[in-house]
């Protein structure tokens, strides 16, 4: 062969399955270079236990912030309403207390609804259908393996009939856990990467992210709704209230300042709520990536799977929306996908793929 001048070749070169690690080292694309730079930010001794600890701390902070915000909105709305009604600050303190209490009661109802009905509503919205051990033994086995590693009961398995690559988990606790993956993901991923994705979802269940995410979404929804309702009332009744206060004893500058504060809060609070929810969502994704590695002990497969999911540009148009986007393993919406998940703003539900890969590959050094 070599006498003919041809370069000798091995008979069948193995299929080029380039790992995220090789690609980062080569640094051919912007994502790869971002991963390579991102890895350097982590100390060499980092473990997944450190990642989980950090994420838990951050998550607790965010929940606290959200509760404060909700109570503040309730109090502000009640205070403003009291001012409209009386035109002076006499009944301000009691109405603030009533407003905060009302916000908490409304919150409790919302929590109850999402607790018992949230998971089913989400599954209906995404059009997922249940699969049993007979339908797809291998998928079922992979889920079983991962839930054994996590020490939780077997979750229900659902398939979303869509060729995009994505997955999510839901349910209020591990006993009612659900893992849903798209048909595209089932068909295109090799077993170790499928295992990594399933492990990521099992980690969401194990960390109770599924519960927090649902409660968080409910709280954000309530805050947005309350502020919206308040603003409508304020702008319709505003002239009426102003006439009344100028005609009456006169509220004075103090009352006016309070009104302005309430209005500004009603405008800003939904934005803040959204920012907090998304920050929490991004933390959850890091946490689940780390938790998945704890189960599989294979950071590279998780990184490879994320890379593959990030490269897939097909959005989940029919089944995902802004309300459910934060639940998926990678952002399912078209706008974000186009940028390869590389942009990360305060309103992003997911960290940039390169940042997630960098954290995983940092574990390999």
């Amino acid at each position, binding site marked *: 062969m070599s006498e003919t001048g041809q370069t000798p070749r091995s008979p069948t070169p193995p299929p080029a399955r380039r790992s995220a690690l090789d690609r980062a*080292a080569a640094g051919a694309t912007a994502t790869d270079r971002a991963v390579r730079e991102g890895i350097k930010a982590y100390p060499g001794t980092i473990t997944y236990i450190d990642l989980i600890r950090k994420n838990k701390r951050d998550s607790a902070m965010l929940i606290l912030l959200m509760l404060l915000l909700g109570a503040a909105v309730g109090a502000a709305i009640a205070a403003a309403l009291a001012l409209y009604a009386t035109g002076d600050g006499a009944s301000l303190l009691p109405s603030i207390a009533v407003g905060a209490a009302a916000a908490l009661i409304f919150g409790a109802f919302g929590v109850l609804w999402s607790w018992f009905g949230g998971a089913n509503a989400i599954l209906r919205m995404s059009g997922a259908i249940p699969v049993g051990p007979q339908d797809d033994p291998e998928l079922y086995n992979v889920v079983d*393996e991962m839930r054994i590693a996590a*020490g939780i009961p077997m979750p229900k398995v659902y398939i979303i009939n869509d060729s995009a690559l994505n997955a999510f988990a839901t349910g209020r606790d591990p006993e009612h856990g659900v893992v849903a993956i798209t048909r595209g993901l089932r068909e295109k991923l090799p077993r170790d990467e499928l295992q990594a994705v399933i492990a990521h979802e099992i980690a969401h269940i194990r960390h109770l992210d599924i519960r927090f995410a649902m409660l968080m979404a409910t709280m954000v929804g309530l805050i947005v709704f309350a502020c919206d309702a308040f603003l409508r009332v304020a702008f319709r009744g505003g002239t009426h209230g102003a006439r009344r206060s100028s005609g009456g004893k006169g509220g004075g500058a103090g009352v006016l300042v309070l009104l302005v504060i309430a209005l500004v809060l009603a405008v800003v609070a939904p934005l803040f709520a959204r920012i907090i929810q998304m920050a929490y969502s991004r933390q959850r994704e890091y946490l689940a990536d780390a938790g998945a590695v704890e189960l599989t*002990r*294979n950071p*590279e497969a998780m990184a490879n799977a994320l890379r593959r999911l990030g490269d897939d540009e097909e959005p989940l148009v029919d089944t995902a929306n802004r309300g459910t986007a934060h639940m998926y393993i990678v952002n399912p919406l078209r706008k974000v996908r186009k940028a390869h998940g590389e942009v990360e703003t305060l309103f992003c539900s997911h960290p940039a793929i390169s940042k997630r890969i960098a954290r995983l590959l940092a574990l390999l050094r």
Partner: protein
Amino acid sequence: MGWIVLLAAAGLFVIVLLWFVAMYNTLVRQRVDCDNGWSQIDVQLKRRYDLIPNLVETVKGYAAHEKGTLEAVIQARQQAVSIASDGAHAAEKALAENTITQALGRLFALSEAYPQLKADANFRQLQEELASTENKVGFARQHYNDCVGRYETSRQTFPTNIVAGAFSFQQREYFRVEASAEREAPKVSFSN
């Protein structure tokens, strides 16, 4: 004045008591986790014992003369079953299970030489089931060892070790598999 001192002392006592209760409960929870983890391993091992005779029968249909390999699998299984019913310690159990894993590995390697066997639908299904059960045993073991790690850390570190000593929380053994360096992440360096 005396009242205040008394009240403070009582408050301090209650706080310390609650702290001890919390530590005690943590230890109990971690011990229960260990026992659950251990029974999870047993569930998977039992499943493997049940699958092996079917596999041996199927292989016999195509490669009856590979007696040595087949018998090694059967023997390894029987030994593991008898050790399991004796309620033996983690170390002996691990050794017996390791023998099964090796014998099965040889059996599957041997099946490569029999195309008809490899094409048998029943064999293929058993192979997936056994391979997955093998993984499940591994993951159940990993989970058990994680639980034991947490329990032992609490049992041996201050201040939980005081509670553990006072209420004689027994040591739990790791389920070690000596032969393999499996599940260890490859060492890769980023030098460029």
